[in-house]
């Protein structure tokens, strides 16, 4: 710690907080390389990228704004259905589909945020859960539109921007999904490092003080909730575009729970947690889950209990940190 006495030093200190770390650059270069270097794993990598985006969306509200949600799949599923129906009825161009899904889910987020943001953590948990259940029931009942329990099939997927065909081209599809993830990650990164992002962290940390500094807490939370919903909608649309069928599993509780788990595994509040968590989760699922599904469920539950017991904001990393502290003889409060 050193004394800061000039504005230049302060500006530098603040700029350093939002500058790209070299590890981040390496990470994204590695991700880009994976498009060409790991052809056999493209379907897994595509899944990871889509879940990553979904988890980043949850991180925006949970990690940065402190809004707990047990029903984030509502926006994911809504975006997927909207994208599929839009493609069937209007155009199969994927980027247009993403934009439409983003707007639709964002609006759904805007409307539902008015319900979610009232009340305590517990009420928020229940209301988000309830919203997802209502969406699930709606999708299930409006089978003339959504295909109900059978799912929605026959969605056309044209080449991206009329140039890049992704249908039945795993390499292209992964490249497309990864590019979308990267662009939206950069956008999210800018948002969380902006004055707006700082106000979210402030509201999360101390809502009372934030409002006494002049922050309209609710408006900010509504804004970020809508942005996160739009992100989730895009993630859903991406999955719809890269899978043959949009089904009710897009909205079910399992999906909301899984994305929460992935984010918690990777850690909240630094954006990479969602990516790392979904990668660990899906790779583990591939290896353990393929043996027996029951075992998988057990180990997921076990992981949750252990993480809840020992880990805080940094997911698995805080377990490592704790171990290191214990080994090193340091005790942390």
């Amino acid at each position, binding site marked *: 710690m050193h004394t800061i006495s000039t504005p230049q030093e302060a500006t530098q200190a603040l700029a350093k907080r939002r500058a790209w770390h070299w590890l981040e650059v390496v990470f994204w270069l590695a991700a880009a390389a994976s498009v060409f270097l790991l052809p056999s794993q493209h379907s897994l990598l595509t899944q990871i990228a889509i879940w990553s985006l979904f988890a980043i969306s949850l991180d925006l509200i949970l990690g940065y704004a402190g809004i707990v949600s047990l029903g984030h799949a509502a926006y994911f599923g809504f975006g997927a259905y909207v994208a599929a129906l839009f493609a069937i009825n209007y155009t199969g161009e994927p980027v247009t589909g993403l934009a439409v899904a983003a707007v639709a889910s964002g609006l759904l987020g805007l409307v539902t945020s008015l319900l979610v943001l009232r009340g305590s953590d517990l009420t928020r948990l229940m209301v988000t859960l309830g919203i997802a259940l209502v969406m699930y029931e709606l999708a299930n009942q409006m089978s003339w539109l959504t295909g109900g329990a059978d799912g929605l099939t026959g969605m056309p997927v044209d080449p991206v921007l009329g140039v890049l065909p992704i249908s039945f081209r795993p390499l292209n599809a992964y490249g497309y999904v990864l590019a979308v993830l990267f662009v939206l990650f950069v956008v999210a990164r800018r948002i969380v490092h902006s004055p707006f992002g*700082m106000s979210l962290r*402030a509201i999360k940390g101390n809502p009372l003080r934030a409002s006494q500094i002049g*922050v309209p807490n609710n408006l900010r939370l509504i804004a970020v909730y809508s942005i996160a919903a739009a992100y989730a909608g895009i993630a859903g649309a991406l999955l719809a575009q890269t899978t043959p069928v949009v089904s009710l599993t897009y909205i079910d509780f399992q999906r909301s729970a899984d994305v929460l788990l992935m984010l918690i595994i990777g850690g909240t509040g630094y954006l990479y947690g969602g990516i790392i968590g979904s990668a660990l989760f899906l790779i583990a699922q591939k290896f353990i889950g393929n043996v027996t599904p029951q075992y998988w469920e057990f180990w997921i539950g076990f992981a949750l209990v252990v993480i809840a017991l020992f880990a805080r904001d940094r997911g698995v990393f805080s377990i490592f940190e704790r171990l290191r502290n214990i080994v090193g003889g340091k005790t942390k409060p």
Partner: protein
Amino acid sequence: MNALETIHLEKRFGGIVPTSDVNLVVREGARHALIGPNGAGKTTLINLLTGVLKPSKGRIKLGGEDITVLKPHQRVARGISRTFQINQVFGELSPLESIVFAIGEREHLGTRFWRGFGSDDAIVAEAVAIAKQFGLSDVLTAQTASLPYGKQRQLEIALAIAGKPRVLLLDEPAAGVPEAERHEILEIVAALPQDVTVLLIEHDMDIVFGFADRISVLVEGKLFVEGEPKEIENDPRVRAVYLGERADG
């Protein structure tokens, strides 16, 4: 000109009336102290003034403008700032981030989502100046939660000042501060800019009489007496209230 004024202000919680028909006038530029025994309703009154609580009856005026129905953040925008009895700081942020943030919100730049936080040179420069004024220069980039209580207390006041308030409400600024760091807080309070109207809530009579040019005494939710420090000091009724309280323990 009145900086702050309450008219027949009342707050009820069921059968309890912590604020009862309070007509308080704080003049522009005043160093006004609000004193009273424990449970007299001082903090309730502050919460009513800042909009944390809604009054059951009565009006509140800030510089002549009726702010009774405004939300807390709208009142802040109109120039009312406060500190809390127990520190309310952003533990996860650094003091630098907290002050830059507070200034940015004052300038209504909090909705900017595409600019980097801290990329506005004028705001950062002002934050550094405020930090210097409040003795925070040496800890600006530390995590606030890791700072000693006294430093956090200084940040608490700095955050309120960063809003460039017309009226500043100080809720027991020296509360909880260790004896050794106390004088630093009091110096800061004494050095507050003259154009800021200050309403000080305080228990410690030494602080009150060293600071205030006007004192109101609140007892059981009602304004009991008001006057110059000399008058209050010699008022037998005030002495009775305080001595009575001490006799109870």
